């Protein structure tokens, strides 16, 4: 793999990481957030302002960056998660606007619109990213199959019933929101390390919306679906970069194509590509059996 492909892979992994967090929030708990990009922003700016101005080494700075995101998520979560779900979604939209505009307010340090650079170069970033991606996906998968996962799915379907089993719905929601936001912070840091340049416009609501689209494309009830679609859909535009179709370059139309793809999924398979399936051995074996079956039937007819 050359640097270009490595770079794209890192980018796709960053999207997988964020979407995994969004899966915990939306897929498991049913909370729709359009402000996760703001946490990427906090993570990235927090960390690299510390490395640049306070001279803190990268790893402690990254931890502090994530901590900053956690604090913001805690405050916002505590205030908004008692509200109805659509209001929570709205507040995340507003948060998604407010945080990037803070970057401009503190232009003196963040370099505002001119973009923030001097981000340290990390060797072997691809391995670190892959490692973190695997770790995050692993963790969220475990979360899904733990008591937390069950409680989240319970509160997603019926908050009132969940409460009657002693589940503190509000606290649980705050916890998951913080978790998802911390994951977004990590993704933001990796994103900055990859680009070595960040500016406020990169973290707007379109990015948050993209995460949700990835999630629902893959299937909001399937972590596998979310991970696969986040990776593939992020990669796709760059694969389509120079593809030609009927003599017309696809480069300009790639996002349009990609919207059409998502619309087709929404119309004809609203549960997402994967529905509720997760990739596990049982599923794989069932699938192979099905294929065998189908081919067997066809053979019989022929």
């Amino acid at each position: 793999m050359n640097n270009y492909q490595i770079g794209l892979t890192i980018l796709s992994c960053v999207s997988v990481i964020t979407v995994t967090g969004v899966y915990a929030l939306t897929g498991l708990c049913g909370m729709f957030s359009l402000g996760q990009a703001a946490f990427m922003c906090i993570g990235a700016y927090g960390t690299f302002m510390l490395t640049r101005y306070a001279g803190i080494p990268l790893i402690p700075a990254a931890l502090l960056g994530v901590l900053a995101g956690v604090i913001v998520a805690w405050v916002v979560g505590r205030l908004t998660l008692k509200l109805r779900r659509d209001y929570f979604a709205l507040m995340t939209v507003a948060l998604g606007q407010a945080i990037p505009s803070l970057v401009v307010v503190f232009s003196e340090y963040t370099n505002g619109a001119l973009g923030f650079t001097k981000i340290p170069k990390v060797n072997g970033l691809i391995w670190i990213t892959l490692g973190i991606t695997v770790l995050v996906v692993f963790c969220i998968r475990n979360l899904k199959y733990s008591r937390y996962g069950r409680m989240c799915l319970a509160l997603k379907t019926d908050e009132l019933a969940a409460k009657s089993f002693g589940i503190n719905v509000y606290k649980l929601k705050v916890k998951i929101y913080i978790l998802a936001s911390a994951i977004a912070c990590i993704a933001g840091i990796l994103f900055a390390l990859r680009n070595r340049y960040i500016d406020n416009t990169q973290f707007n609501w379109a990015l948050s919306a993209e995460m949700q689209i990835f999630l629902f494309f893959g299937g909001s009830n399937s972590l596998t679906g979310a991970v696969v679609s986040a990776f593939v859909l992020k990669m796709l535009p760059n694969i389509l970069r120079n593809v030609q179709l009927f003599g017309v370059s696809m480069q300009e139309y790639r996002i349009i194509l990609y919207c059409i793809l998502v619309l087709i999924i929404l119309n004809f398979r609203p549960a997402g590509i994967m529905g509720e399936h997760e990739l596990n051995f049982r599923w794989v074996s069932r699938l192979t059996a099905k294929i065998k079956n189908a081919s067997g039937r066809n053979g019989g007819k022929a």
Partner: protein
Amino acid sequence: MTGKLFIQLLVNGISIGAVYALIAVGFALVFSVLKFSNFSFGGTISACAFIGFFFQKAFNQPPYWITVLVSSVAGVLIALTVDLLGFNRIRKKNSPKIYYFLSSVVFAIMIEQILTVFYGTQMYAFPSIFATTTLQIGGITFSKLDMTILAIAISLLVILIIIIDKTKLGLAIRAVAINSNTSRLMGINSSVIIVLTFAIAGFLGGITGVMLGQKYSVYASLGPSMMLKGFIASVIGGLGSLGGAIVAAILLGVVEIFATFVFGAEIVPIVLFGIMLIFLLVRPQGIAGRIAEEKA
């Protein structure tokens, strides 16, 4: 701040609030019937601005009202297309509300992208409707265009409220908004009413598009950039309430203008965030909404 300046800012705030109101009402209308926030509305507005502009250009400046009419018919068509391609099947399948929302976000991105790809390389502006753009009354400057927009917005909103409150169609829309299934038992063709609601919103979008295109210039992100404000206003107003949305939109415009004046523009998103937070904590049902409590 002098008194004159204060009034001037108030006038400015109300003018921009009127624009937000047009958008917020489009939102609130669809929300009240379908219970989701239709983000594709922003795209519809941009597209209508472009259509109005090209119509104006192609037919060598026909009377202004014809342009507005054409653009609003286009708005209706776009809204219906979006409904057909984006929401119709979701409705038939009874999928969760979140899919409508998602579908509308995808449309928002797609329409903006289509406009950017095909028309993003140039800038377009409507020819002005007034020879002189401003008017002085008692030391206060009124922009003629703003006043026109305000007048159009108010009259449209009044017409809309009359339709909703006083006509049979309005009664049907309200009934479908409350319960579309029971409405069918009353002999109301709920699907037609839903499509009609989209059409009305599209109509508003068409008019808003031309107005915005006239005020600002015509560009792909015109609608989407204004849409978030309309969205905020419709929520603060109480999701689905038209009157509330209008009040909230005007308030939002005024607050925004004063906040910009006092604190500077960068702080405004943060101020708005704070205001919304406090507002929702104090009055979670919005200005005019009611809380639907869950019954065990």
